[in-house]
């Protein structure tokens, strides 16, 4: 009992201390990226409460109104309205939410799929390894945009298909990382010791190998969030992603492009939001990678 209480009380300060240490290591840009990322997450999570309007509510009398500070600005539409009189700010907030949900789902599916294949391939070896690595090579050889376009054309552009496509993106990176780590770790004495002690293959995989491969996976996961946001917004921009009236940031830029000469705010607001997301995530990903890789420290 006494031990459990001690464990409980020291866990939180340890976590806080860890967070404080990370914050202390960060430079100005990285701290700004952390703040932006946290802010974006909060805004996205509470989008329905923050947004002043329904994202799909149209208003024909207040079409194409500019943001605050310009002529013809209409009260209540802080960042202007689009061609159907929908509030650009509300649509951007909901778009951000959907974009981030899609990215998180996609990155998680990619991690599970690629990680499992890499683990199986690394532990099993032989023909299984050849087949999985052959698939990895084939995947690397074909630009993923092509696969995504083809899949969306075949199965239609629904949110479910989009999640599938984003989940497939980058699986080969995880598979390669996990397989490499597995093969490195399998040669280590502590695995041999575990095997000699009678541990099963599953126990070796999950108890001894996987926990040691976490660090490169975290880095890859962060970087892949940024890549998936890029892919999702590109596909939506091209009109192949989530279909109207539901908006993601990419589709807002894609559709708003037709109004660029007369109403540029329809494009600028979601475009700036995409930039915030990719910059913050990319800075954090690069930073995590540099921390994890000793060789890069001095560079």
């Amino acid at each position: 009992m006494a031990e459990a209480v001690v464990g409980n009380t020291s866990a939180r300060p340890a976590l806080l201390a860890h967070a404080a240490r990370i914050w202390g290591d960060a430079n100005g840009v990285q701290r700004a990226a952390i703040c932006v990322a946290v802010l974006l997450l909060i805004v996205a999570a509470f989008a329905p409460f923050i947004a002043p309007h329904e994202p799909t509510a149209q208003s024909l009398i207040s079409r194409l109104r500019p943001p605050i500070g310009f002529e013809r600005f209409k009260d209540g539409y802080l960042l202007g309205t689009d061609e159907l009189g929908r509030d650009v700010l509300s649509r951007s907030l909901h778009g951000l939410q959907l974009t981030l949900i899609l990215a998180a789902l996609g990155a998680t599916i990619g991690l599970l799929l690629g990680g499992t294949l890499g683990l199986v391939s690394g532990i099993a070896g032989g023909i299984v390894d050849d087949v999985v690595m052959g698939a990895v090579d084939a995947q690397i050889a074909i630009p993923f945009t092509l696969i995504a376009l083809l899949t969306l054309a075949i199965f239609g552009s629904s949110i479910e298909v989009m999640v599938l496509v984003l989940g497939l993106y980058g699986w080969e990176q995880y598979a390669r990382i996990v397989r490499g780590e597995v093969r490195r770790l399998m040669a280590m004495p502590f695995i041999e010791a575990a095997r000699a002690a009678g541990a099963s293959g599953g126990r070796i995989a999950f108890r001894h190998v996987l926990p040691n491969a976490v660090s490169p996976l975290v880095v890859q996961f962060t970087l892949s969030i940024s890549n998936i946001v890029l892919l999702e917004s590109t596909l939506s921009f091209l009109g192949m992603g989530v279909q109207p009236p539901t908006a993601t940031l990419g589709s807002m830029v894609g559709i708003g492009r037709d109004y660029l000469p007369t109403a540029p705010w329809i494009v600028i607001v979601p475009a700036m939001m995409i930039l915030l997301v990719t910059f913050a995530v990319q800075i954090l990903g690069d930073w995590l990678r540099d921390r994890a890789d000793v060789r890069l420290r001095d560079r």
Partner: protein
Amino acid sequence: MVRHIARTLAKMIITLFVIVTLVFFATRLSGDPINYVVGQGITQEDRELLTRYYGLDASIWEQYVRFLGSFVDGQFGLSFVERRPVADIVAERVWPSLQLLLSGIALTILVAIPLGILAAIHRKSWIGSAVMTVAFIGYAVPNFVLAVFMVLVFAFTLNWLPVVGNSTPWHFIMPTITLSGALIAALTRFTRNAMLDVLSQDFMRTARAKGLSEAVVILKHGFSNASITILSVLGLQIAGLAAAGNVVVEAIFAWPGIGALLVNAAILRDFPVLQFAVLAVAFAVIIVNGVIDIAYAYADPRIRLGRA
């Protein structure tokens, strides 16, 4: 060497075969293609007529064998939308795509390699960090956002540059810059890292000790050694990035190339065109990668002389 080439070729052919098979069966999962040709409201006789016209009355295995045969006789079927052979439609778009790709890659090499070398030499000063910051921005800005902002500034506000098509040299400026953005960022980072690896080698100190000028040391001894590594990446990463980037850039600027065709075919569900265009691009990327792989092996005496 011969064994290495044979292995590379065999791997290429297997990959191509797998891709062809996957693409063929995947496109058959979309239901009756006739629905995409004319929609629902036609008589049964017309439907059967069209099914025969597009060769869809045969069993799926017959269609597959015929599809494989089309790589021999060059008959890849008709577009659902334009009712013309897909090979013709794609063929007339190869040159514009190639033009854009080549100008994009040329700009990338001209900008990224000097920048990368500069960043490596001035690693610790503000020049190095300025270059790496620019490279980072190029990497994090999606190409369509870059394109939209450029269009807003240079086409609609300043009225300097045209937006649609490829008729004059002026039309090349924005698409080329858009395509190069991410490529420059990737290649700059890579050149810098490859140069840093070389700069710390002993033979660099020897070259300086011999009294060679700094320019000769950096370019002749440094860069020529780094260039092998850079070349390999130029092929493997840049080929894929450029092919994907081309799709987006062409769609944005209505460039009459394969990328814009691909996006249009995907939106219109024109499967014969989509299928052929995807295969054409995939083939191009895989063949370029294969050629670079062999060239790389030839440049490496350990593989050329058969010791690895």
